């Protein structure tokens, strides 16, 4: 039987969250939803780190420091991502009718 300590609970929650968020990230079309899924991937990863830190007594500060840095970086990329989402909107809206097809074709070629 699995011992349900706080540490392993956090660990498994983090892993589950990361996995689900990754699936969502790969399947969703909407850019904002994608960004949120990406954010959740980051959150899940950080939970894993916290879970790893909590496995020892007293709690190990190094994984926590890793998690803290991770939080800072999550904030940074979320900001960059939001700016990019707006830029995508600006880039594609005015010419959507004229140029949209060409873009779709491009994407297809890349896939």
């Amino acid at each position: 039987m699995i011992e349900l300590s706080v540490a392993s609970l956090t660990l498994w929650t983090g892993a589950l969250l990361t996995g689900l968020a990754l699936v969502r990230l790969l399947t969703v079309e909407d850019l904002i939803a994608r960004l949120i899924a990406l954010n959740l991937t980051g959150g899940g990863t950080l939970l894993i780190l916290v879970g790893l830190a909590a496995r020892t007594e007293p709690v190990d500060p190094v994984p926590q420091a890793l998690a803290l840095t991770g939080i800072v970086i999550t904030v940074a990329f979320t900001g960059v991502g939001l700016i990019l989402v707006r830029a995508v909107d600006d880039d594609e809206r005015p010419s959507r009718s004229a140029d949209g097809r060409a873009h779709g074709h491009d994407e297809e070629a890349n896939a």
Partner: protein
Amino acid sequence: MSALLPAAVLLPVITALACLALPRRAQPISGFLGGLASAAVNAAVVVAVTSHGVLEHHMAGWAPPLGIALRADGLAAAFVGLTGAVGFATLVFAASAEATTGRRTGFWPLAMLTWSGLMGIFLAADLFNAYVALEVLGLSAVGMVALGGRGAPRAALRYLIVAVVGSMLLLTAIGLVYAATSTLDMDLAGQRLTAEDGWLPLVLAATGMGLKTALVPMHAWLPPAHAGSPPAVSPLMSALVVKGSFYLILRLWLDVFPRNDAVALVLGVLGAVAVIWGGVLALAQRRLKRIVAYSTISQVGYLFLAFPLLNLPGHQPAMVSAVVAMALAHGLAKAAMFTAAGALMLGTGTDHVDGLVGAARSEGVLTAGMILSAVSLIGLPMSLGFTAKWQYLEVALQTGAWWIVLVLLTGTLLAAGYLLRPLAALIRDSDTHEEVGQAEIGPRPAAQRWVPLALGAMAVGAGLFTTDLTALTSIGWG
């Protein structure tokens, strides 16, 4: 002497900050000067490692585990040298005209941050610094991709997601390594990590770095990001940024993770598929920058093809030298290709192959640069691309890895195939051909001609210094 290492990381950051503070018009000057100084520091690192052996520096005198440690062995020095050469050449190219850096401001600070991120990765002695440097590299590279024209924001967003997922996987791997070894120091972790604890973080890190290096099947993000970037960004992306994540997985493979044949084989097979499939995709392209971008996917395959051979006892030093030569050859040649493609695109307004017919007449220097870089990318003697392939061949033949021999030879023909199309168009004579007109090329600044030639000549000429490169990469390990 070891103070060179923090200088190599910090000088680009300072330059980036200086560029940020200045208006766009003044950025090229300051960026160029900062780049020149950084390149000089990089060269000094290479010289110092060659003559004095491994360099190590503890920031502000704090020793690990509390302080930040920087370390340069031969492997790191080779990549530091590559960054100096390609980075500086690209900055010269970028300084030649504002149009090379895209329609938005921001190239100069972002390029210097990218430089700094690369230095951080190459010189990091512990896992945590490597991770932070990788994030710096990733975010500034995303910013550079966003500088491009139509379609660039979407490509940048896609690249952002790739970069973040990749580094999150790496972060998890680092957490697991720490949990198993209670240290972040690469050497110590490598001594303590057992095969039992090592396989999961290895898989995570390899997946993450494979994603960021565009290893097939995780490559679809690369062509729009690399081909859609402004002329001065594409060379940095293709020649240097993908090398950052590749260097990290190579470094972890050599120093931290225990030998794992299964993962090595998977990476090697994916690399083989990448060589072939990337080449086939490149054959299907009609736009020069797309051809060059798909060529990167194929060439990245060669890098990963090394992993099964890296695992074999007795062949590791030879193989490390081979993979470093391959990475350097690709970096130099690809930067030459992308700067040339960018210059042609700025001159003609298109990068469609049919729009470049006869361009060699007025752009002979640039064409010569492209031909030289093609020689190295195809792997014809005596370029560095050839000597790298030769070293692969030697190890593969010695160990009876026939499938790798086959991939190397097929990849050579594919590369010749996809590079012939644009080069044939350039040197072709349009007089005898009415259906396609002669390309009209606006006069190019001297830098846009000579930078591709210099880089291409380096890619070919460096082949003569293969033995020196081998000696350099062997410093500090093995």
